[in-house]
Each structure stands twice: as C-alpha cells, then as structure tokens.
C-alpha cells in the first residue's frame, strides 16, 4: 500500500490508529491486527527518519500493537469453566471507542465555537476598580482593633452557645438603621455617581422617596461640589432639565 500519510498530521497515536481504521473501512470490533500493525509501523518508520522527538508515543502504540499481534498468534489457552475467551484486542478497542466518543463530540464543539464567536461581552467599567480598590485598602480598617484573641474567644463563645439555647429576647433585637446624612458622604455620592454615569440630571441625584433632610444635605453637597469645581451645571433654557457633568479638568478618579 502507498504511504502518503505523515505523522505530523496526527494528534497522536490514537488519532493515527483511528485514521487507519477509518481509511481501511475496518469494523472497529474486528480489527485485522496484522494489516493495521504493518501499516502503522510503516508510517512510523517513515517518520522516524525525520524526527525522533514526537516519536515516543507513537512507538509506545507500535509496541502495544505488536504485543497484541503476538498474543493473537499464540494458541488460545483453554479457559476454565467455559469462560468467554478474552480477545487480545479488547482493551485497544475499548480505548478506541472512548477516543472516538470524544472525537465525535468535537464536531459539535466546533460548530458552537463558531456561533458563540459572534457574541461579545463587555469589559468591566474601568471606573469600577475604584470601588474595588477602596475596598481592598480597607482591610486594615476592617479588622481595626480585632486581635486574634477576639477570634479565639469568638470560637469558644460559639461552641458554648451551641450548647445553650438561643437567647430569644436578645436575638429578637433588630439593628437600628442609620438615618444620618453628612455633606461629605453626599459629595462622595455625587462624585461616584459621575464616575459611572458621565452625565446626570439634577433630579436623578435625589433618590426616590427620600426624606427632607436627605434632600437638603444632598443639595448642599451639590453646591459644595460646584464651589470646589468638581462638577459643572448646565441648563439649555429656563425650566429645562438641569444637567450635572464632571467639571472639565477635574479628575474625580484621583479624589
């Protein structure tokens, strides 16, 4: 037979072996091991002359094939209790089948790869890293005053409590919600708002159903922002929408 196959074109010994079986239109469950081994060896020998590097795996398979071939030549040992004869090719067949199952599914993977490549995802807004950074540098603050003793005691406490019943009175206490707004807080709020949204309408800086005190504090914060040249205010005409944008040249991100 003609040898036009080049080893470099195969993904590995299974790929080559599988190709030979397909090319010879062989029933995978009845591999003519002599013929296949010969073809396989011929290709490997040919390639061996060119490169030794990629050879080891192919040679390992060659050895396996030769071993099967020799076992097929041996007279069949009589099995006790009429057990079914194990075909020396069985293990190889099982491996080929498993390989084929994965190889088959790659076709569908390829199609899906093509379809999915038409969909784009957006990068995270670069401004978001500011929020995340703030969070990271704060570990010290977060754990401020906490010693390992506290953790040690907390664990003891948990173990202790587990034995006791939960204190029903205490566990029913709810935390008291903070209801205090500061101008500083609201300045940060307006600045952060402009990081995510480059242009905000005046009414948008007030949250819905806010209390009067919050409106007042927010408005004072806005005035402060204007004074500190952090934001610009514009209005196309009387009674038109008042628009807040970043003051040109101010770098909110560095604030």
């Amino acid at each position, binding site marked *: 037979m003609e040898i036009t196959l080049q080893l470099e074109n195969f993904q590995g010994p299974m790929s080559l072996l599988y190709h030979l079986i397909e090319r010879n239109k062989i029933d995978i469950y009845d591999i003519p091991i002599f013929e296949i081994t010969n073809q396989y060896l011929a290709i490997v020998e040919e390639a061996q002359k060119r490169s030794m590097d990629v050879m080891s795996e192919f040679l390992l398979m060659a050895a396996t094939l030769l071993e099967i071939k020799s076992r097929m030549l041996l007279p069949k040992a009589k099995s006790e209790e009429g057990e079914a004869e194990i075909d020396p090719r069985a293990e190889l067949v099982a491996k080929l089948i498993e390989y084929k199952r994965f190889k088959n599914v790659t076709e569908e993977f390829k199609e899906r790869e093509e379809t999915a490549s038409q969909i*784009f995802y*957006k*990068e995270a*807004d670069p401004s*978001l890293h500011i*929020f*995340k950074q*703030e*969070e*990271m540098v*704060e*570990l010290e*603050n*977060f*754990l*401020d*005053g*906490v*010693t*390992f003793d*506290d*953790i*040690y005691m*907390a*664990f*003891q*406490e*948990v*173990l*202790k409590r*587990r*034995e*006791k019943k*939960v204190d029903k009175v205490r566990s029913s206490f709810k935390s008291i919600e903070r209801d205090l707004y500061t101008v500083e807080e609201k300045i940060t709020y307006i600045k*952060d*708002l402009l990081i*995510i*949204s*480059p*242009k*905000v*309408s005046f009414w*948008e*800086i007030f*949250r*819905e159903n806010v209390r009067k005190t919050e409106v007042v504090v927010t408005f004072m914060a806005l005035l402060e922002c204007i004074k500190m040249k952090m934001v610009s205010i514009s209005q196309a005409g009387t009674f038109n929408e008042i628009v807040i944008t970043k003051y040109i040249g101010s770098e909110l991100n560095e604030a």
Partner: protein
Amino acid sequence: MKLNELEAVIEAILFVSGEAVSLAVIADAISMDKATTKAIIKTLADKYRDEKRGIHIVELDGAYQMCTAAHCFDYIRSIYKSTKRQGLTQSLLETLAIIAYKQPVTKGQIEEVRGVNADHAVNKLVERGLACEVGRDDSPGRPILFGTTKEFLRYFGFTSTKELPQLDENIVLNSLELAEIEE
C-alpha cells in the same frame, strides 16, 4: 432593516464599546444618514428613560454612551462597597473564627455550628479577602470548602494555619459545665 433592528444594532454597539461612540461611526454602521441616526438614538434613549430602565443612553458632545441609570446607583455600589463603613460585625467575627479553626469547612458545617444561614457572612469574608475557597468536599453536592487566606494569617502574624493557638480544652469543658449548671 426595520426600525427595531436598527435600534438593536445601536444598542449592541453602544453596549460593547463601553465608551462614547461618535454619531458618524454609528450612522456608518447602520448605513443611515446622521440626522436619521440621531433621531433613532434619541427615540431609543427616550424609551430607556421613560421606562425607567436600568441602562440609559447619554449624549456627550455629539457622541453617545451607554451608562447605568442614576436611580440604580445605590444598588451597584452596594455590591462593590457594601461593607465600606462597617467593621467586622459579631456575625462575621464568629464565622471567621469557625472557618479559622475548622478549616477546610463547608457553609453547611458553619451553619450547623452557628445555627443561622452562613451565605451572607461567608460571601462577605471572601469578598474581604479573609476567607477563600480551598476545594470541594466529597459529600453529595460536592460543597465548596472554605479556609482562611494568606492575608488573614499575615494580618495576625501567623505563617501557617498550624500556628493558630490551640483551643483550650479546659475552657471549652468548663464553659459546657457552666452551661449545665445554669440550666
């Protein structure tokens, strides 16, 4: 293309670019003149605003940009800096203690000890870099195992979890006895 197809394309372009896209570029992409394109974008932007959607389209010097609506801002910030001003709460401290001493530990096991849902506390600790996933348990559902991070050890001056002070068995025992007496 029909109008809603044009709107869809503009939407996709603005979404993916992440920054302001000039009118000219958008007009070019949908093969329309600038005036028509501008009108379509305006309609789309108005629709977003009228429907109080979470995404808005704003104009900036003849370019257009997609951004989040201001009224959603608090929720976004809550994700990224939810713990900004509060320190380690009792609930977090206890959860951290359990993770430190029982690691690797699953959320389920933490819940078992504390008797309350551990989702929030564990997420917070992971977010703060104090706890992290360290593998999966072999039990059904292969739940995530949590442990403390290098930052945690560094902060408290340990080099390995093996250095954590051993629990004083006596204290535990005493406390249990005490509990019995109290009952």
